């Protein structure tokens, strides 16, 4: 009986603390939005973060995109040729990439590559009093440190997702056309005919924009509120990757349901 009550108490406790943390993140998001003009006005602050988060993620994004595209081509060809429609490989690959794999895999890779780095950097700045020092110099650390990093994630994510998809299409072209020998013309023309700009490309961009907000917010939030110890920063970094990945996959489901509602009915 006692154990039961303790269990329920524990459950309630963890739900309450999760809600409190969510509320804290919400307030933190508002605080960032209040000063989001700063990195736009002082563009050099944003450029630095775009370089660290965006440009430095290029290699992993492009290489991963290529390989995902190549694998898609092999798997897709194997299934499509059973139905004698292997020339539609271009559409299959492009739609998979633009609608889903581009935004989602990019967001997962970005969380691991850039999000974790941002969390660790901000967490260590907090642990070494750099953020306190800035605050004592009457410089708002949310404006000066947090908002450029957040905005950089929001801006880089759609761009990286586009590059991921482009690299994927190119990878699929190499495997499908050059290696397997699908007709060059039908690969591209089917793709052109089958991919809709608004429905597929714009929706994919919206997705990656939302993922950019989610991953960016989680990364700066975890860093800012990381306990100022080695253990605290390391677990905050892990939490960024885990929470971002879950958030991206859940948001992807919600967005997909919303974007493609009524299309099959």
């Amino acid at each position, binding site marked *: 009986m006692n154990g039961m009550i303790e269990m329920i108490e524990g459950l309630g406790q963890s739900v309450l603390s999760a809600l409190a943390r969510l509320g804290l993140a919400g307030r933190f998001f508002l605080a960032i939005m209040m000063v989001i003009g700063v990195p736009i006005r002082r563009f050099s602050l944003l450029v630095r973060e775009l370089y660290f988060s965006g440009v430095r993620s290029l290699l992993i994004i492009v290489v991963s995109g290529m390989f995902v595209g190549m694998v898609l081509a092999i798997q897709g060809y194997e299934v499509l040729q059973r139905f004698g429609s292997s020339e539609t490989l271009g559409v299959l690959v492009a739609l998979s990439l633009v609608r889903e794999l581009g935004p989602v895999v990019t967001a997962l890779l970005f969380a691991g590559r850039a999000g974790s780095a941002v969390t660790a950097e901000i967490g260590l*700045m907090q642990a*070494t*009093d*750099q953020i*306190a020092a800035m605050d*004592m*110099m*009457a*410089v*708002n650390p949310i404006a000066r440190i947090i908002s450029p990093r957040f905005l950089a994630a929001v801006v880089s994510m759609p761009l990286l997702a586009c590059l991921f998809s482009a690299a994927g299409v190119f990878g699929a072209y190499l495997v499908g056309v050059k290696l397997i020998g699908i007709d060059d013309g039908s690969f591209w023309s089917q793709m052109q005919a089958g991919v809709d700009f608004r429905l597929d490309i714009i929706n994919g961009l919206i997705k990656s924009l939302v993922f950019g907000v989610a991953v960016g917010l989680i990364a700066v939030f975890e860093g800012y509120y990381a306990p100022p110890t080695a253990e605290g920063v390391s677990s905050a970094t892990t939490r960024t990757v885990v929470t971002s990945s879950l958030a991206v996959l859940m948001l992807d489901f919600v967005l997909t349901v919303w974007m493609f509602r009524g299309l099959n009915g």
Partner: protein
Amino acid sequence: MSVVKSSPSHPASLIEIKDVHFAYDERPILRGLSLSVRKGEVLAVMGGSGSGKTTLLGLIGGRILPNKGKILVDGQNVPKLDRAALYALRTRFGMLFQFGALFTDLSVFDNVAFPYREQTNLPESVIRDLVLLKLQAVGLRGAAGLMPSQLSGGMARRVALARAVALDPMLMLYDEPFTGLDPISTGIVGRLIRRLNDAFGLTSLVVTHDLDASLKIADRVVVLAEGKVYRDLTPDDVRTTSDAFVRQFADGLPDGPVPFHYPAPPLVEQLLGQPGTGQASAGRDGGDTP
């Protein structure tokens, strides 16, 4: 600079702290602390770990809020200020953090230039000259191009000092400025604190537990215990006092009014005794009972 307003009761005091209470969660740190800091003096605030020294700096800087009490800095009640007024006041503070808190992604030069670039509209050529002068004052003009990771602890502290005095503050706050420094660096930093204070007409509050270093530079020494000012002494008083707590502190005795042992049941009882006495009963806060 702005007109100096002073509180009527102590015309010559820059900081006036009245009956301040502060607790972390349920643990009381300050219990009715009152303290005034006179203009132009170097005041050393001493006390054991957990006596609320660093908390005091947080309260004066407005980074934490007291549960009760007034903190007047230059006539303004810090806990009641809104963000804009607090930031306006803070531009007239300089603070040296325990390990310097230099921005690790900026060079020494850019660290010292940071306050000018953020708070002023000075052209870059003027900033360059000002930064070099500040670095010259702490003897590190030659290190302007280095990154913080390339500096020794003492050098980092001196760069942080140059950054803290960049905007010619009225008040300097030092959080454990001597921690982890070798004797030479301790001497250098101590002398810089004194020299900057006198040359620029500052007021300095030095929170420390390094008695020797602070006796050399302070005009007055305040000892905190049990969340209050326990003794207010001149450096000479500290050397000669017979007060048991101050003596223990000054002579570095392991046992005395501050006990060596954390509260625990008697050893024999715990070793031979019944199960259930295996753990010390609820601990006390801090360890600085005089």
